[in-house]
């Protein structure tokens, strides 16, 4: 893998910026160069929030990317806005719990997952963002499961009681990602 870009988008408060951070941490841990560039707006909560994570073996040139290789979306406006921009052959992960429409990209791998329900089963409905991240990590070969889980544990170190459910949510997503990759091959 030379380099990749992942765009994670949703409403503010859904945790996509955090998912991006965990991916960046994990990639950095693996010795990669990374950049984490958020959209930032005047809204503190509830507005659209998206983040682009670039991962490369050498220096990340432009951290600002208009055509990402992967897109993870938590809401319909983000899918409508960004799905057409994903590079051909790329990946789109859609949170089916919140997005009723389909991505019109036959040239991409599209994974639909009811992330909220999956997260709830894992123990916390709030971890839908980690289910999404899990799907991406499982599907791609950018970072491995173990490193990402370590980053999740580190992130929640001060709130240790939340770790098991969050890790479980990530793992469930990861399994889906691995499955989807198997199906594609």
């Amino acid at each position: 893998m030379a380099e990749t870009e992942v765009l994670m988008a949703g409403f503010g408060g859904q945790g996509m910026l955090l998912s991006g951070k965990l991916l960046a941490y994990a990639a950095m841990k693996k010795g990669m160069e990374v950049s984490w560039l958020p959209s930032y707006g005047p809204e503190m909560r509830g507005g659209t929030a998206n983040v682009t994570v670039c991962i490369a073996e050498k220096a990340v040139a432009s951290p600002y990317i208009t055509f990402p290789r992967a897109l993870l979306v938590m809401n319909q406006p983000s899918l409508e806005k960004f799905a057409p921009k994903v590079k051909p052959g790329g990946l789109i992960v859609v949170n089916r719990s919140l997005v009723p429409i389909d991505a019109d990209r036959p040239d991409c791998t599209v994974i639909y997952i009811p992330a909220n329900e999956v997260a709830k089963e894992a123990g916390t409905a709030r971890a839908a963002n980690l289910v999404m991240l899990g799907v991406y990590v499982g599907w791609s070969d950018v970072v491995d499961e173990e490193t990402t889980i370590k980053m999740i544990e580190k992130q929640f170190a001060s709130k240790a009681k939340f770790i098991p459910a969050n890790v479980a949510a990530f793992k469930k997503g990861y399994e889906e990602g691995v499955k989807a990759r198997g199906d594609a091959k």
Partner: protein
Amino acid sequence: MARVLMKGNEAIGEAAIRAGCLHFFGYPITPQSEVPEYLAKRLPELGGQYVQAESEVAASNMIYGSAGVGIRVLTTSSSPGISLMAEGISYIAACELPVVIVNIMRSGPGLGGILPAQSDYLQATKGMAHGDFHLIVLAPSSVQEAVDMVILAFELAEKYRNPTMVIGDGMIGQMMEPVEFPDQEIGPPLDPGDWALTGCKGREKRIVNSLYLDPEECNQQNIRLEKKWEKITKAEQRWEEYKCDKPYDLLICAFGMVSRICKTAIDSLSEEGYRIGLFRPMTVNPFPYDACAKLVKKSKRVLDVEMNMGQMIQDVRLAAEGSKPIEFFGKAGGVVPSPDEVIDEIRKVMKKAGIKKPKKKTSPKKKIGTAAKKKTSKKTAKKSAAKSSGSPKRSKIRRKR
């Protein structure tokens, strides 16, 4: 020290601490508020002072007071706030006090917007405030460089007793990248020298003043400042050359974050066989005119790319002295030019200039987004320009002590 993933604004705050700056006076404004937030937490822990001023006007005068008593001091703001600081900055420059000011630029004019822009280039390098004076202005293109340049800014500010500014667009402040800090947790304090107001015990009283009612005295003061600037101009130019060691047809000029967007575009077109180089000033004031001129000379055409309506292009034109047509591509208002847009623009310019790719591929195969190793000219290296090709790896502008 191990690399950590850090938001630009917070990294800037930490860099100041590493440089030994424990005093901050400022006012919140998007998109740089994480700097005061970070320092509000850290400085009291370290026995320093964080003061939230009532306005940027007050903040600029607080740093005047702080530097005047011989304390290393920082303020940060974003475009509209910097305009308000113009007053204090002029006085500080006149009194030759070492302060560091960081401008995380947003779009303008007026209230503009909160998204990234580079539209304060001319303000920082040419017209900061009333009177004849110059700021040393550094323009980082990554979070690591922001850290290195904040540390360098203190060094230069103190070496020349001249206010020094670091300008980055909103992306530099908001994005996270891996950074490495110097090992020293807190740098040594500023030497108050023979100018700071520390109380006149055992010596003559000192005055920090910019009033010269006698025109000849004021003239001499201006001459002194200009002479200092000549010295700075000679000794402190820093720049980066990217893919300029091989023949190129088109030279792109860009500073800060935009230079990285241009690199992605250049890499992509190099793959197709086009020959394109990049010139990036790291000190935008003093602007490396000679270096720029040399690179312009070797090109057939020049394209200047900025996140504004064309500001640095004035300096590129000065450097080119009419020898080459200088094309411009810019986006403003918080719109960031994408690599693809830059590619389209480059194609347009090359078509217009009749530049075709050489029949034989000269560029090595590169995938989009990978930066090639850049060779730094001897002169650049001597002047301690970053050796990296915009890589977030530590560049050679680390504090010397």
